[in-house]
């Protein structure tokens, strides 16, 4: 049991892993708050959202394993790939930072995930469609939760507004990647397995614009968008996530827990 390298995974498999990795890594980040949140209600809420994401990741890895054959399991994907094999977008691996960073990251991602899951309910991969139906409901709550907090922080105190603005500026460059279409995605969109993320851009923009308008904040001016996660080109943060995440499976390979 060593590091799992997927050489040229099929587009279908790659798509499943991209979605699954987004959810695992975002869930992992949120779970870091447990016991350390600004109020007990948020310890609970963030753990809840983390559980939704980890649950979605598990279902998607399951489907990947089924498709992949070779007797792999969900845990092989999570625990045996090194950073270059992870396909999540960069946004979800950004550090929690302060609570404003966590809320802005969640809003930016969930405002994308909600409509994207909605169109994926029509996926020709019936398992994806079923996962999407469940996840869409969860994402509705995630958007509401982060949207409510965005409002409170953006229109709360001077300090909370400044922090929210800084978080927006820091995270905005990672939003472009959510809507990218590449050679992996193109055939899958044509087949109806995947959905075109560009088709939900307008809805995403509307959600964000509404949130901004309610606080009087504006879209930060960002000359460059970041990209790379979908092909395993990550930030330096992912490696440290994986060192913790994978420790037990690496130290005690082949054991059942």
């Amino acid at each position, binding site marked *: 049991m060593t590091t799992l390298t997927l050489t040229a995974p099929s587009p279908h498999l790659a798509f499943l892993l991209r979605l699954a990795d987004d959810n695992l890594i975002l869930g992992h980040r949120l779970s870091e708050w*447990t016991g350390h*949140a600004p109020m007990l209600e948020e310890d609970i809420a963030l753990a809840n959202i983390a559980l939704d994401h980890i649950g979605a990741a598990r279902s998607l890895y399951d489907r990947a394993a089924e498709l992949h054959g070779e007797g792999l399991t969900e845990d092989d994907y999570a625990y045996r790939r090194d950073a270059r094999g992870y396909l999540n977008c960069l946004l979800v691996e950004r550090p929690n930072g302060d609570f404003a960073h966590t809320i802005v990251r969640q809003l930016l991602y969930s405002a994308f995930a909600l409509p994207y899951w909605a169109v994926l309910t029509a996926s020709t991969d019936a398992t994806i469609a079923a996962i999407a139906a469940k996840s869409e409901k969860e994402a509705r709550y995630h958007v509401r939760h982060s949207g409510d907090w965005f409002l409170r922080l953006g229109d709360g105190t001077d300090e909370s507004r400044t922090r929210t603005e800084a978080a927006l500026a820091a995270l905005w460059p990672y939003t472009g990647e959510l809507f990218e279409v590449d050679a992996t995605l193109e055939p899958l969109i044509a087949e109806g397995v995947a959905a075109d993320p560009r088709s939900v851009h307008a809805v995403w923009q509307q959600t964000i614009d509404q949130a901004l308008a309610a606080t009087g904040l504006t879209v930060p001016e960002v000359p460059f968008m970041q990209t790379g996660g979908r092909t395993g080109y990550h930030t330096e943060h992912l490696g440290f996530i994986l060192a913790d995440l994978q420790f037990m499976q690496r130290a005690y390979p082949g054991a*059942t827990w």
Partner: protein
Amino acid sequence: DPREARFMARIDAEERIEPNDFMPEGYRKTLVRQIAQHAHSEIIGMLPEGNWITRAPSLRRKAALLAKVQDEGGHGLYLYCAAETLGKSREEMMDELVDGRAKYSSIFNYPTLTWADIGMIGWLVDGAAIMNQIPLCRCSFGPYARAMIRICKEESFHQRQGYEQIMTLCAGTPEQKELAQDSLNRWWWPSIMMFGPSDGDSVHSAKSMAWKIKRFTNDELRQKFIDATVPQAHRIGLEIPDPDLKFNEETGHWEIGEIDWEEFKRVLAGGGPCNADRVAARKAAQENGAWVRDAALAYAQKRAARESETLAA
């Protein structure tokens, strides 16, 4: 005082006391202290387990652990609410926790050093907690009793889940079995101490029994726990780290060796391996979160002000 007499008559008749009912000051104080300690224990208890969320060895276990720690947060919340019905604010209780005035269960001052400790906490610590808590479902104070009913259901699930995790280790590789035994060696005595001092040395016991806050003595509950747990350990091939342990055929009870009360007192007094780290972690959460709570308050006030302006217009 005739009110006190009526109060005691209600207690004796197994009636529930509710927040707005008359109650003697001692009863209120005892309850506030006990419920707050209990709430704090849930909150501090999130830390040793939370320590392994990012390192859980499988996605299934990670999700289960996260859900468990979340449940503990929920328990803390019910309990703070129950204490608030007695007139003490959550903020005040939180302040007492982070400045060291309030106590919480000493068991959480031990570190989780390996993954096995997560299963062990479920099995032993939640197991011991349930022994304490089941009688509290019949506590004379209504809000506490009702919170306990819900909490006990979840704790009992956690306890089974913890035992199952340890069972899995014992059925696994030799390294896994070793992790389980090592963890039991470290957690056995601290769990036994969770029931508090022996009846003779227990300060608050007699009054609490009379008020039907407590239903059993510390030693009675401890014995129940030992009798339930020793056979569970033996069933999965684990050895209890107590050379003096023996089964008394006459009484039908397992008898343990001497408890190290010095250790108990030291940990209670702040000298456990993690006391300082636990309080520091909660203090950091309180301080780092202050601006967030301030923002939420400021927003709520602005919003209320806007609404009343709209109404006035």
